[in-house]
């Protein structure tokens, strides 16, 4: 079945609506759309989609663009040293910052379709640029809202942290109501410069009819530090693609994620930690607790180039199955081309420890509450990575709200 995104009339109409944009932006959209229109047919056997019920991520039912007036709201202001603006505003005010878009490649972990659609049709998102040596205490907050009934929303964000700056960013992904079926496709391009530090927290609480595509590519410069903490709580299905390239010497990349699956929820996670430069460190920990019929797929790769000697890289996937029907698939991978390295990966899948459960029950705690406590404990080493202690408590509450007791 063809979606309207594929029709050139549809794209034409969209372009006319955005005719106020500079010519290079229009060219970029046109080019992306042409590449989308000529994408080769999806193959049945694609390693990048292994174990994934791919049809659940199709655009067939949501092939109209969103018409909600403000899909992204920002909290936190631009200042002399920081630019924090919505996508549309930045096109007008800071076209130069957006001009990197044509050279952005995305994570390239399977969702070419979403990436090219996002490049063609993105209408929202934000730009965060911190100038050299600027340290901001207050977190920048961005709230994204999923589109209304049977529509798709494409958005792009650019985060660029100049050398020696330090910034915290929190992104919320929410639905405006509990019943709309829609697709929210988000592309993030993140660059952390020399000696700079970025903490990013992603909280996804979409309603359980929505689809969430979350594609991010992170580039780390020399001595740069990036910590990503992701809470995947909502949506019917979520596809996360995360690529971290350590381009500068001794860059440090921490990627933490937790998913709480209920009903028929699907979390499809694909990650790569790519060490291009030597002395880099990366640490990945993805934890999934799966209830009812939920399903998680984790596919991760550590890639160490021949030049990236003295790399320390770890990748861990832990799955907790709380029902007979829950399902977890792991594809932890290593590709090591340098010999002076410390690399390891681990993947485990198991159920709740009977003894722990018994202990709590023997103290008079009902089984369901005991399970909840154990799951919260299971997630603690992700939430505990949050740099700001005030935030930790609120994130705990977020997770616990999603538990039916």
């Amino acid at each position, binding site marked *: 079945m063809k979606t309207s995104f594929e029709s050139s009339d549809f794209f034409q109409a969209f372009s006319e609506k955005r005719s106020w944009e500079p010519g290079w932006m229009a060219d970029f959209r046109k080019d992306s759309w042409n590449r989308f229109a000529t994408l080769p047919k999806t193959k049945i056997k694609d390693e990048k989609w292994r174990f994934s019920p791919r049809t659940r991520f199709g655009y067939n039912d949501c092939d109209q663009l969103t018409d909600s007036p403000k899909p992204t709201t920002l909290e936190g202001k631009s200042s002399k040293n920081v630019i924090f603006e919505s996508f549309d505003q930045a096109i007008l005010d800071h076209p130069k910052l957006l001009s990197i878009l044509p050279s952005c490649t995305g994570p390239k972990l399977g969702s070419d379709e979403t990436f090219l659609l996002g490049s063609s049709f993105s209408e929202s998102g934000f730009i965060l640029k911190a100038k050299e040596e600027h340290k901001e205490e207050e977190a920048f907050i961005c709230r994204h809202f999923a589109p209304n009934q049977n529509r798709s929303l494409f958005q792009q964000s650019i985060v660029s942290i100049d050398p020696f700056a330090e910034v915290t960013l929190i992104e919320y992904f929410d639905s405006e109501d509990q019943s709309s079926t829609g697709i929210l496709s988000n592309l993030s391009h993140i660059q952390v410069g020399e000696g700079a530090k970025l903490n990013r927290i992603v909280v996804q609480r979409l309603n359980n009819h929505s689809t969430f595509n979350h594609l991010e590519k992170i580039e780390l410069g020399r001595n740069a530090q990036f910590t990503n903490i992701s809470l995947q709580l909502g949506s019917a299905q979520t596809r996360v693609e995360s690529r971290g390239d350590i381009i500068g010497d001794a860059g440090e990349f921490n990627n933490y994620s937790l998913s709480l699956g209920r009903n028929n929820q699907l979390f499809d996670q694909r990650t790569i930690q790519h060490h291009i430069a030597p002395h880099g460190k990366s640490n990945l920990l993805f934890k999934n607790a799966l209830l009812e019929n939920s399903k998680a797929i984790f596919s991760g790769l550590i890639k160490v180039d021949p030049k990236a000697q003295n790399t320390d890289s770890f990748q861990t996937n832990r799955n907790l199955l709380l029902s007979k029907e829950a399902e*977890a698939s792991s594809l932890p991978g290593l590709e090591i081309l340098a010999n002076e390295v410390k690399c390891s*990966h681990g993947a485990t899948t198991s159920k709740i420890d009977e003894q722990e459960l018994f202990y709590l029950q023997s103290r008079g705690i009902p089984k369901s509450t005991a399970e909840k406590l154990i799951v919260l404990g299971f997630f603690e080493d992700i939430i505990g990575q949050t740099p700001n202690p005030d935030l930790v408590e609120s994130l705990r509450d977020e997770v616990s709200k999603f538990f039916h007791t």
Partner: protein
Amino acid sequence: MIKPSNIEIDREKGNFHYPTSKYAFDAGVGLSEDVVKYISGVKNEKDWILDFRLKAHSIFEKKPMPTHWASKDLENIDFDVIRYYLAQGQQPSRTWDEVPDDIKNTFERLGIPEQERKFLAGVEAQFDSEAAYSRMKEDLEKEGVIFVGSTEGLRDYPEIFKKWFGKVIPSSDNKFSALNSAVFSGGSFIYVPPGVKLAQPLQAYFRINAENFGQFERTLIIADEGSEITYMEGCTAPKFETSTLHSAVVELVALKGAKIQYITVQNWSNNVFNLVTKRAMAEEEAEVRWIDCNIGSRLTMKYPGVILRGRKARGEVLSIALANDGQHQDTGAKMVHAASETTSNVIAKSVSIGEGRSSYRGLVQIPGHLEHCKNNTECDALLINSDSQTDTYPAIAIQGSENSVQHEASVSKVSAEQIFYMQQRGLNQAEAMSLYVNGFVNDLIREFPMEYSVELKRLIDLEMEGSVG
């Protein structure tokens, strides 16, 4: 025989062959239906076997190469220049003097007994050796063990072997199992009656007057209820194999309470594509153990698997891979849990030397209706030089709250400190390195029967020569 590629291989190493004119039967080069019919005709096979072969041939034609995930090097295989069947009608006659010196030397250094050495070198079977092994054969027959070649197995004992032949690994499993099913010859068919426990391991080269070193050998081992068997497949013919494609199919059937241990030491020369499909079926309380050691070949793709069909069945894969310059050891294990209380264990160790590349690919599957299944997987990789490469690609699919799996992999390099320590005690660098590598794989090597572990240690020493300094 292989199209030119970027991997440069010393073809002279394997350039040691029987003159083809000595063969009584030759199917020529290339593969077609006529070739399949010819092979079947030469073997005087029943119609159902010919049908099986023809069907497999058509599957082979249709199946794509697995290159969407596997090494692109596979595309260098030219199926049209391969000889699919050669048989001499009798043993090749050649004297020990005709065997090139370097091969003799290798045998010497490996410490292979003279009898086997001559056999491995393709020298006509010696009368003495026949006598030595035939007593063993007699003993086996007394116990009711059937130990024959694939042709004899299907011809003389169809009532035993037909039931399982091609059932564990159907022809359509992959392109190379289809190829093997179309043109197979050689290999071993073994049946162990209920309750018989073989004290001695069976080895392929006991069965002297048959074709052993087929390119497309087919092995089927059936261990009946409560029986035990250890089978050793020694491709210990170093730098000798002339063919460029070796594609075997090995099926094991362990019925209730049976135990099978299958040991392979693969040391093909560096111009061989070794694409082997090995799978076992384990019924209730049965135990299957694959011990797999890959040292030779240009590209090996081999993932021994166990389908745990009965309650409390157990599967195990112990694997050692050594990849040197120009080699890619793509090995792994598959554990398919299909009954409750089944357990599986995979321990894989690989060493990459020079520009060698070793990969681990694994599959563990536990569906949700099962309970109390367990899997443990450990992969350790050792990188010797800065150009060495290692990859790990496990796939683990688990359902249900009553099962548990754990997977761990680590990559490390030789510790400079330990090498220094050994050098300080008077070992030279190469010896120290060799000792280190032997230590790394030691806990797996101990699982091998004595003579194999000695041989393996020496093989590792040989491979490590000149890899440092």
